[in-house]
Structure formats: structure tokens, C-alpha cells
């Protein structure tokens, strides 16, 4: 991993963000086991470099559409870990006032226009956001995050075709963690290189090491620039590894513990940490402080979530429609 040419603060910020995401996800697992989080969650342990590398290439008014494994995207785009944890805990103070939960974290202010519970469901929506930008003459970009499994959905193919046809400012980011839930890639598609699917739609397909945050950042920068300048979409396949279950509680019968331990050696956080030390950008002590800071932030987030009020059941009808037509819609 080559760090030359990058500002020190930028590199440290990438590291801190990945650590914050890791800490968030690990603590969410504990919080769920302890009963604070009532629903299911899909942590991103091992995949943090994709979210962080892509979002580092975006402006604050660019938008992302996330998927079921979305905490990382949300935090990487600038999401507040306190309101995100409160959302997971189903609290009124959550980003979506407890109406969405882990699979539906959205916050317009930071440009996360919605995670999704349907595999592949968000991809056409990102294309629609990009269409709105092009239609309005705005130099903004939309990113769709999805997995290898989603790239088998019709929505992916329809969205790619439409975006490329209309040269929309969208970047398709496929986080290939080699499993569609519990089914290995070789058992769910006939090809190895998902980036090659871009050829079918007349757009660039780029394969990057998704565990190298700088490689992801560089590929994203090119794709975002291309999108912003009106040349159309790019498909980025970021090859990465999920170090945890598909969801919290996944017994992972489909792979051995040993195989996961081997994958751990590719951990993107350990990799950047090593590079930061090697290049004398950070000391061991400084890195310890980054981790402690993240822990403190997540402690506060869990505390905030736990102390936050639950939503008022009398308000359950709120937000189904913009108005209720004197109750006639219910």
C-alpha cells in the first residue's frame, strides 16, 4: 500500500472512519445480544474500505443509495453514529424515528437517500436520483452500493442499461464479498469478474482490491469524475471479504472457521494501520488513541440510544401519507 502523495490528515481520517464503522458494527452485535436492538442486523466487518474509499471521493451533496449491509455506507457518508444506533434500537431519536431500523437507515442531510431491505431494490433508485441531477442540470453524482448477489437481479441489469443509455451521473459499486447471503459466488454466478458485466452495457467496468481503501478511493475518483462530467456511469467491482456472518446470528455452515481466519489477514483496517506505521505517519500510541476515540463515540451512541424515548404508538399513522384525508386513507 503506497501512501506517498496523500495528505496525512486524509489518511488518518480514512483510518478513523474505518475503525468507527468496525466499532459501530461490533457494538451493534453486542447491543442486539443484550436486547437493545430488536431487529436483525447485517454487519460489514471486513468490508469497511469499500464504503470509506468510495465516500471519500464524493462531495457532501452527492448521494448514496445503500443496501441491507448499510451501516458502513451511512457512517462513511457522514452519518451520526448516535442517531444511527438509536434507529437500530427503534427509538424516536433515530434517523428515521424508529420506523425503518437497520435495513432502512436514511438521512437526507448527509446524502444517504436510503438503505434497502430488498436485494437490488435500491439500484434503480440511484439511477433515478442521477436522472434528477441530469434533468436539473446539477453537477451531482449518485452512488449505488450493492453486493455480488444483487448483480444477479434484474434491477441491476435494467438500471445499468438505462444509466448507460442516458449517460446518467451514477456509479455502481458492487461489493463482491463472494457470498450472496450464504451461497458462494461460484455457486450463484457463472463468472468470476463482475466488472465484466459492464461491457454488456457499454460502460467501463473496473475491478479493484476492495480491501485497499486507497485503491477504492482512486477508482471511485475516476468514476465520479466521469459521471460528473456527463460521460455516464461506471461499474466498480470492489473485491472484499466479509469477516462475520451474513447477519448477526448467522451460523455460517457454508464456510469453515479456518477459512475466515485466513481472510482476516486481508483486513483493510490492519492493512492501513500497517502502512501508517511503516510510513511513520502515525505511531502506535496515536493509533491506540484513534481506537479509543472510536470506542468512546460508540459508547456514547449506545448510551444515547438506550436513554432515548421509544416512539409513541399513538403516532403510528404518522408519515404514511403527507396528509391523511381525515382518516379516509387508513
Amino acid at each position, binding site marked *: 500500500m503506497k501512501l506517498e502523495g496523500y495528505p496525512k490528515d486524509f489518511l488518518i481520517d480514512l483510518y478513523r472512519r474505518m475503525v468507527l464503522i468496525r466499532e459501530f458494527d461490533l457494538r451493534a452485535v453486542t447491543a442486539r445480544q443484550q436486547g437493545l436492538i430488536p431487529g436483525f442486523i447485517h454487519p460489514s466487518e471486513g468490508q469497511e474500505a469499500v464504503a470509506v474509499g468510495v465516500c471519500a471521493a464524493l462531495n457532501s451533496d452527492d*448521494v448514496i*443509495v445503500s443496501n441491507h449491509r448499510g451501516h458502513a455506507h451511512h457512517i462513511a457518508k457522514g452519518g451520526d453514529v448516535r442517531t444511527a444506533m438509536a434507529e437500530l434500537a427503534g427509538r424516536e431519536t*433515530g*434517523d*428515521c*424515528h*424508529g*420506523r*425503518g431500523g437497520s435495513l*432502512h437507515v*436514511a*438521512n*437526507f442531510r448527509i446524502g444517504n*437517500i*436510503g438503505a*434497502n*431491505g*430488498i436485494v437490488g*431494490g*435500491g*439500484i*434503480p*433508485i*440511484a*439511477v*433515478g*436520483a*442521477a*436522472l*434528477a*441531477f441530469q*434533468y*436539473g442540470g446539477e453537477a451531482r453524482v*449518485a452512488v449505488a452500493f450493492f453486493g455480488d448477489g444483487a448483480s444477479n437481479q*434484474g*434491477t441491476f441489469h*435494467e*438500471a445499468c*442499461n*438505462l444509466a448507460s*443509455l442516458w449517460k446518467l451521473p451514477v456509479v455502481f459499486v458492487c461489493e463482491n464479498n463472494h457470498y450472496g447471503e450464504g451461497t458462494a459466488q461460484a455457486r450463484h454466478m457463472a463468472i468470476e469478474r463482475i466488472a465484466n458485466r459492464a461491457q454488456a452495457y457499454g460502460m467501463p467496468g473496473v475491478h479493484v482490491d476492495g480491501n485497499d481503501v486507497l485503491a477504492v478511493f482512486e477508482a471511485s475518483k475516476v468514476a465520479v469524475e466521469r459521471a460528473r462530467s456527463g460521460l455516464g456511469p461506471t461499474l466498480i467491482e470492489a473485491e472484499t471479504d466479509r469477516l462475520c456472518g451474513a447477519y448477526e446470528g448467522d451460523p455460517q455452515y457454508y464456510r469453515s472457521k479456518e477459512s475466515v481466519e485466513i481472510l482476516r489477514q486481508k483486513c483493510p483496517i490492519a492493512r492501513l494501520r500497517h502502512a501508517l506505521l511503516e510510513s511513520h505517519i502515525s505511531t502506535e500510541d496515536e493509533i491506540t488513541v484513534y481506537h479509543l476515540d472510536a470506542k468512546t463515540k460508540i459508547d456514547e451512541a449506545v448510551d444515547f440510544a438506550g436513554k432515548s424515548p421509544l416512539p409513541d404508538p399513538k403516532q403510528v399513522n*404518522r*408519515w*404514511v*401519507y*403527507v396528509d391523511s*384525508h*381525515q382518516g*379516509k*386513507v*387508513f
Partner: protein
Amino acid sequence: MREMTYAQAIREALAEEMRRDKNVFLMGEDIAIFEGAFGVTGNLWKEFGLERVRDTPISEAAIVGAGVGAAIMGKRPVVEIMFGDFLPVGMDQIVNQAAKARYMSGGKVSVPLTIRVTTGATGAAAGHHSQSFEGWLIGIPGLKIAVPASPEDAKGLLKTAIRGEDPVIFFEHKRLYGMRGAVPEGDFTIPFGKARLVRRGKDVTLIGISGMVPTCLEAAEELQREGVDAEVIDPRTLVPLDRDLILESAVKTGRVVVVQEAHSRGGAAAEIAALIAEHAMDWMNAPILRVGARNVPIPYSPVLEQEVLPGKEDIIAAVRKLF
């Protein structure tokens, strides 16, 4: 008052809304150069250009999904699904995305998306081009469902749909496209949740949905000759539903037949019948009846199709059972 067809009224609504608001644009299969599979969009593309009247690939999920995304970002897309039968291809984007974005984001997102879709049978189009799916969608909180049955209603309700903040599925009955009727001059809207009293009567209430409204009227005229004075109500929107007018009429006549072209099992007619049973049972002088298509795929051969689809005679036969 001037007269125009249902299709012309829809086109006029689209044109006026596009002139009024630059955020309104159209997307759909063959709606521009081809001028619409049923000619509804016509030459709109000549006035508004191909950026605002967009031909799309045949990709219902992407069409609806792109509409959702553009709506979330503040545009007011009107997308067309050529046949209601193709709604299932884009159903995830309707049911799981458009309908729920506002609620699940805690009110942070609006989806001002109008999905225009043709519905109903026109003769020998068989099971993939003849169905009526409004009944599926009334059970999805977050969606509004419009079923206009006159040129004036088509125009006024479509304008309300486009100006509203919620996703609307706007069912246009193919058989009504050529129907002529009076349409007021100038800008007007018709509110959702207000039914139309189509014909006043005192002996029985016929509640017709979409293409069944004119059929109910024909049945009412014939029943008049038998001495039965039928009231005809068109709900105009199924969500929100004008419970007040429906219940008022049911209480007044004590006899109700709810008529839909959709398969009779599990449809909007069942929902309306249940509403009356829940709130007006004590005033009923006879069972509440439903008339709908037989629960068989719409067949191709006209002799079979006629057997399956509801018609005037089925309505009259149902009414006779009530006396």
C-alpha cells in the same frame, strides 16, 4: 361545456402540468416518438422535447425505480406502464420502495410519483393484456389509488395526483379512452377521497369501479324500466375511499351491489362490501353482493372472455336477487 375524450383529457392534464411545473416529466415505453401505445401521450414530445417525454427501454422495474429516485430528489415524474398486466414486473419498486420511503424514513422523504397504468379488458387480448390489478394495491399503505371513469374525472384527478406528495397508481381503463364527456375549461382539480354520485336513486345502490361505472349506468337505465330506481356511485379513488357517501347511500337504499371488472375474489369490491357490512349492517334489507370477473384467467376467445367478464346482465341479475 366543451366535450373531449378520456384520452384527450389525460393528455391535456399532462400538458398543462408540464407547462405549469418544470419538475414534471414523463417516462415510459413508446410514449414519445411512437406517441403512446394507446395514443394518450400523442404529440406531447413535440412541444416538450424528448428530455421531458422520455422513451424508455422495456424495463418496468427500472422505469418505476428511476421514477422513485427522481421523485425522492424533488422531481415530479409521471411514468407510464403500458399495460396493468406489466405492473408485477415493477412491483417491488411500487410496493416496497415507492409506498414505504416516506414512512420508513420517518417523514424525511416524499415520493411525488404518478404511475399511469392502463387497466381492463378490450376484447381478445388474453390473460397478459386484460387484467385489472387495483385490488392488489389497495392493501399497500403508502399508495393512493385512482380509478377515474369519466373525462372530467380523469383530468382533475390526474392533476391532483401530479401535484400531490404521495405516490399514486392511476388506473386508466382502456375501454374508456374513447369515451366523450364534458370537461370544464381552464385549470381545475378533483380531490382524492370524494366519490361521485353518478345517478340518484332510492331502491338499490350500485357502486362501480373504473370501467364498470358506465356499465352500472346502463344497468340502472334498464332496471328503471322494471320499476327499480338504482343509485350509481363512482368512488373515483379507492385509497383514500369516500366512506361517507358510500355508507350514506347504503343506509338510504338498504341494498348494495359492488361491481368491478377485476376477478371477484379479494378485490376492491370485497373491501367496499366489508366496509358496508361493518358500518351499515343494521340498515341492510338484503345481502351485500359483489359482481366481478369469474375467477379464471381472462381467456382469449371472445366467447370465453364474455363468459368471464362481468357485464350489464350480471349486474341486473344481482339486483333482482335483492328483491
